[in-house]
C-alpha cells in the first residue's frame, strides 16, 4: 500500500454512489462498482465497501450540508437487487495491514457519526430504506441513519454476522448502536449479534432493530411518503442555495510535507515528528454573512477547517510513522476572533452554523487521532477561540514566556472566546475545558470570566490552560528533549495511554464506540483467532473454517 490515499473527491467522478436531488429530499443510492476497489486483490461484490467507498460517502455527506442546504431528508437506498449492503469487504480486511484496518474503522466510524448527527446539527435527516440483505457494516450504515425502514418480503433482513462468520466484531458502531441508540434488550441483542442470518420482518420492528416494517408492494411509495412527511415536519429553515466546495489549494512535497493555503504540514521523518502550523487570517472578516456566503469556500474559517481536516486524514492514512504531531499557529488572534465572531453572532444563519459544526467535527477528529500531540504556543501565535481548542485537545502544551532574543513577534498569548464554552463539545458531551477541569470546575468559570483577553504565559499557566511555560533559556532544550523522548516510546503504549487520558468524564454512545468497541475490535484484529494464518478472517472465502484457540483470555 504505497500509493497515497486521497480524501479529496471530485463529485463528478463518484464511482460507488448516485445522488438525485429532488427539492427537500435527496435520494442517495449505494451502487458499488465491483472493480472500483482502492487496492488490488479484491472485488467489491454485493455492495460491500472499502475505504474508497467510504471516502466518497463522507464527501457526499459533507457536500449535502454545504452545497445542498435545501435538503432536509436524505434517503439511503441500494442500487443492487436483493442486497442493501454486505458491509465492509472481507477480502480487503483479510489482506489489509493492522494499521489500515484500524484507520479504516476509525474513518468509517467518523463518517457514520457525521451523518447520524446531521439531523441534530444541520436538520438533515437520514432514512435507510432497506430492501434485500442488510448485513454487518451494511446494517451499521442503516443504524447510523435516523430512521430505518425495512421491507417485509420475507427475505430482506438486517444482521450483524461478524461474530459467527468472521470472528470479529461489528466494529463500526454496530454493537453500541444496537444497545445504546436503539435500546434493544441485551438478551435479544445477544441473539441478534450471534445469529448469522439476522432478523427479518415484523420481529425486526418488535425488537426495535428497525423503525418500520412495510409490505413490499407498498415499500417504495411509503418511503417516498415518509421522506416528504419528514421534510414537511422539519424545522430546518429553507435555504435557496448552498455554496460550492472547490478543490483544496494543496501541494505535496517529496519529504512528506504538504503546503495548504492556511496550513503548513512539515514532516520530519527521521524524527518521526510532524509539525502542523495553522496560519491565521490576515484580512479582516467579511462584513456580514452575505459577504461570507459570497466568499464561500474561500472564507478563512471554512477554508482552514477543510485544510486541517484533510491534513489529519492524510497523515493518519499515509504517514503512519509520523507518531508525534506538533501543533503550532501563527497570526493575529484579534483578526482570527473577528472571523470567528461573525459566525458566533450569526449562529442561526445556516452557513455560520455549518462552519461551526464543521469545526466541531474537525476538533473531534483531532481528539481521536492516535498520535502523540503537543501544542507549542510560540510568539506570534494565535491560539484563540477555536484554535485554542487545540490546546485542550492535545496531550501537552508548552508556551513561550517573556521575550526571546532575536524574536520580535508579538508575545505569546492564549485567548478564549465563547467558542471554548459550549459549541465545540467533545465526544463525551462536555467542552474540552470542562473535561480538562473535571476535578476543578471552578477553573472553567474563572476561565470564562477572562475570555476575549489575551493571556500571556504566567496568566495562562495560572489559569491551567497550558502544561508548562518556558523562557528563552529553557525553551529549545526542553522542547527538544520532550520531542525526542516522546518519539521514542512504544507507539502502542502511547496510543493506549493517550486514548484513555483524553476522554475523562462521562461515557456517551460516541465514547463507547471509539473507546470500548474500537479497543476490543482492535484487540481482536491482532488475535490469531481472527487474523492468524488459520484465523477466520484469513480463511473467509476458502471454505475452510477458522481454527480457534479455545482458551478464554
Amino acid at each position, binding site marked *: 500500500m504505497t500509493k497515497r490515499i486521497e480524501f479529496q473527491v471530485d463529485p463528478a467522478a463518484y464511482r460507488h454512489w448516485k445522488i438525485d436531488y429532488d427539492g427537500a429530499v435527496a435520494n442517495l443510492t449505494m451502487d458499488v462498482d465491483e472493480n472500483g476497489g482502492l487496492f488490488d486483490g479484491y472485488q467489491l461484490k454485493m455492495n460491500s465497501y472499502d475505504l474508497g467507498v467510504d471516502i466518497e460517502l463522507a464527501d457526499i455527506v459533507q457536500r449535502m450540508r454545504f452545497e445542498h442546504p435545501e435538503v432536509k431528508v436524505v434517503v439511503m437506498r441500494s442500487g443492487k437487487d436483493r442486497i442493501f449492503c454486505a458491509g465492509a469487504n472481507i477480502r480487503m480486511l483479510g489482506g489489509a495491514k493492522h494499521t489500515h484496518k484500524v484507520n479504516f474503522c476509525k474513518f468509517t466510524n467518523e463518517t457514520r457519526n457525521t451523518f447520524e448527527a446531521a439531523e441534530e446539527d444541520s436538520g438533515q435527516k437520514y432514512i435507510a430504506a432497506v430492501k434485500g440483505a442488510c448485513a454487518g457494516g451494511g446494517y451499521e450504515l442503516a443504524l447510523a441513519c435516523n430512521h430505518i425502514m425495512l421491507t417485509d418480503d*420475507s427475505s430482506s433482513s438486517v444482521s450483524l454476522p461478524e461474530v459467527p462468520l468472521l470472528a470479529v466484531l461489528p466494529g463500526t458502531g454496530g454493537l453500541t448502536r444496537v444497545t445504546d441508540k436503539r435500546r434493544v434488550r441485551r438478551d435479544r441483542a445477544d441473539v441478534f449479534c450471534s*445469529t*448469522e*442470518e439476522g432478523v427479518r420482518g415484523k420481529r425486526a420492528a418488535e425488537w426495535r432493530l428497525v423503525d418500520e416494517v412495510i*409490505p413490499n408492494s407498498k415499500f417504495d411509495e411509503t418511503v417516498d411518503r415518509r421522506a416528504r412527511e419528514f421534510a414537511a415536519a422539519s424545522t430546518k429553515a429553507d435555504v435557496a442555495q448552498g455554496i460550492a466546495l472547490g478543490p483544496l489549494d494543496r501541494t505535496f512535497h517529496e519529504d512528506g510535507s504538504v503546503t495548504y493555503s492556511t496550513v503548513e504540514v512539515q514532516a520530519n521523518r527521521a524524527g518521526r515528528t510532524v509539525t502542523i502550523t495553522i496560519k491565521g487570517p490576515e484580512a479582516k472578516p467579511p462584513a456580514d454573512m452575505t459577504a461570507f456566503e459570497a466568499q464561500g469556500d474561500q472564507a478563512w474559517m471554512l477554508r482552514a477547517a477543510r485544510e486541517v481536516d484533510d491534513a489529519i486524514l492524510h497523515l493518519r492514512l499515509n504517514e503512519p510513522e509520523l507518531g508525534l504531531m506538533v501543533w503550532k499557529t501563527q497570526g493575529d488572534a484579534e483578526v482570527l476572533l473577528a472571523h470567528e465572531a461573525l459566525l458566533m453572532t450569526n449562529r442561526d444563519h445556516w452557513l455560520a452554523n455549518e462552519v461551526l459544526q464543521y469545526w466541531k467535527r474537525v476538533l473531534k477528529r483531532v481528539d481521536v487521532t492516535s498520535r502523540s500531540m503537543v501544542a507549542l504556543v510560540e510568539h506570534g501565535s494565535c491560539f484563540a477561540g477555536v484554535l485554542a481548542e487545540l490546546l485542550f485537545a492535545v496531550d501537552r502544551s508548552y508556551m513561550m514566556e517573556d521575550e526571546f532574543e532575536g524574536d520580535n513577534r508579538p508575545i505569546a498569548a492564549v485567548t478564549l472566546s465563547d467558542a471554548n464554552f459550549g459549541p465545540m463539545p467533545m465526544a463525551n458531551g462536555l467542552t474540552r475545558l470542562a473535561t480538562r477541569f473535571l476535578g476543578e470546575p471552578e477553573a472553567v468559570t474563572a476561565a470564562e470570566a477572562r475570555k476575549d483577553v489575551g493571556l500571556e504565559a504566567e496568566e495562562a499557566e495560572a489559569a491551567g490552560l497550558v502544561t508548562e511555560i518556558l523562557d528563552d533559556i529553557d525553551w529549545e532544550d526542553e522542547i527538544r528533549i520532550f520531542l525526542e523522548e516522546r518519539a521514542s516510546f512504544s507507539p502502542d503504549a502511547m496510543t493506549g495511554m493517550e486514548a484513555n487520558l483524553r476522554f475523562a468524564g462521562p461515557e456517551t454512545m460516541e465514547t463507547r464506540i471509539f473507546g470500548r468497541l474500537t479497543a476490543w475490535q482492535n484487540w481482536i484484529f491482532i488475535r490469531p483467532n481472527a487474523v492468524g494464518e488459520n484465523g477466520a478472517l484469513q480463511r473467509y472465502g476458502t*471454505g*475452510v*473454517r477458522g481454527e480457534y484457540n479455545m482458551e478464554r483470555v
Partner: protein
Amino acid sequence: MLDLINVSYDTQIPNNVGLSSDKKVLKALERWHPGYINWWNDLIPQNFQESMVYLRTAVSVDPKGWAKFDYVKMPEYRWGVLLAPQVEDRRIPMGEHAGELAWQEVPGEYRNMLKRLIVIQGDTEPGSVEQQRFLGLTAPSLYDMRNLFQVNVEEGRHLWAMVYLLFKYFGKDGREEADDLLRRSSGSEEAPRMLGAFNEETPDWLSFFMFTYFTDRDGKMQLESLAQSGFDPLSRTCRFMLTEEAHHMFVGETGVGRTIQATLDAMNKAGITDPYDINKIREMGVIDLPTIQKKLNLHYTLSLDLFGQEVSTNAANAFNSGIKGRYMETRIDDDHRLQGDTYVVRTVKNGLIVAEDVPALTAINMRLRDDYVRDAAGGVGRWNKLIEKSGIDFRLTLPHEAFHRQIGVFAAIKADPEGNIISDDEWEKRRDEWLPSKADGDFITSLMKPCFEPGKFASWIAAPKVGIDNKPGDFEYVKLHMA
C-alpha cells in the same frame, strides 16, 4: 375434502418417519397443514381441483410402494413424508469431517447453513407450481395435463419433505421458515421467491417442457449434491426426492421431443426442407426449429444462473462442512477434502474469456454446473437424432456458458451463443435472433389451445410413444370436472 381437524397422519400422510408418534412434528404440521391446503386451493384453477387425475402416489420407499397409480382429486393427494432407507454406518463423504459417522441430528455449528440450504431448496418447490398454475387451461392433451399435475403434486410433496426437516430439526425458527415458504410466491411483488428463475413466468407449454428439462435438472443436481450431505436426514430425503425428479425430466425431454417431432412430421408432409422457412412452417400450426432453439437458449441460460457465482464462499463452506457434496461425490476419485486442489473456472479478464485455476473448494458451484452441462447435453443429442432421422438439416445446440447470463462472471459482458464477446449495441441488435422475441411468444401463445379429448393432441405436439402406467393411447388421464 380433507378433514383438517382429524387428520390421521399415518393414513393420510404416507410416511416412514413415525409421524403419528412424533409430537413435535405433529404439532407443527397441524398448524402448517391448513395453510398449505389453502395455498394449493388458491393456486390451481378450481375445475382442475375437482377433476379426477390419474396420478402416481408414493406410499412407501420400496420399489413397489413409490408408484401407486390411481385417480385422485389433487387437494386430496396424499403428500407423503418419505426418506430413503437409512444406510447402516453411513459416513460423511466429504469435507473436513470426511469419514466421520453421518450426523443424525443437526450439528449446532452448522445449523444456520443447513437451514439456509433447506429453505432455498424448499422455496423452489412451490415456486415452480406457482409458475405453472394456469397451464392446465391450455393443455395440448389430457396426457400432458396429467403429467403437469403429476409434476405439480410432486413438487408439492417435495415442499412437504423440506418442511418436515424444518419442523423436525430446526425448532421455532424452522416453523417460521416453513410459514414463509407459503408466504413467498412466484413473481409476487409482496414476497417473491428467493431465486430469480422461479419468479419468471412459464407462459406456455413449450416453456414448461424446457423448464422441466433444464430447470428441474438444476433441481436434480442440487438434490444430488444435498443427497451427499453429512446430515443424514437431509441426504435420505433428497435421495428419495430424486426418484420423482427423474419423471419431471422425462416429461421435459419427451415434451420437447414430441414438439420437435410434430414439426418434423408437418415439414416432411408438406415437403418443406428448409428449417428457416419459418412462416410456412408456422402456418401448419407447429413450432419451427429455430424458435425451439431460442426457447432452449432462454431456459438453459436461466438455469445456468441458478448455480450461482462460479467462485463462491457459501458453496465452499457447505462442502467443507460436509453439508453439501458434489455430483456423484462418492464416485469421484480424490481425497474428498480438496484443501490443496484447484479447479478450472472460465472467467473474463481484460475483455477475453480465459480459463484459470482457482482453489477447488471455492469452485464447487462451477464443478456442479459443469456436471449439469454434461448431463443436459444428453437429451439435446437425442432431440438431434429425431431431426437427423427426418432428413432435415438442423441441429439444436447448447449455447456457450457466457451467453445471456445474469449471475456470475459473465453477467458483466454480452456474448453471442458461440461465446464471442460482443458490444451492447450488437447484443441489442441481434438479441431476437437468439432469444424468443415478443412475436415468437405471441405465435407460440396462439397455438396454446386446449385439447381435452382423450387420445387427441394439439397440432404442435406429437403423441407419446407409450402411455403412463402403460395405458392405451385414448386413456382418459384426467376426468375433467365440468362445473
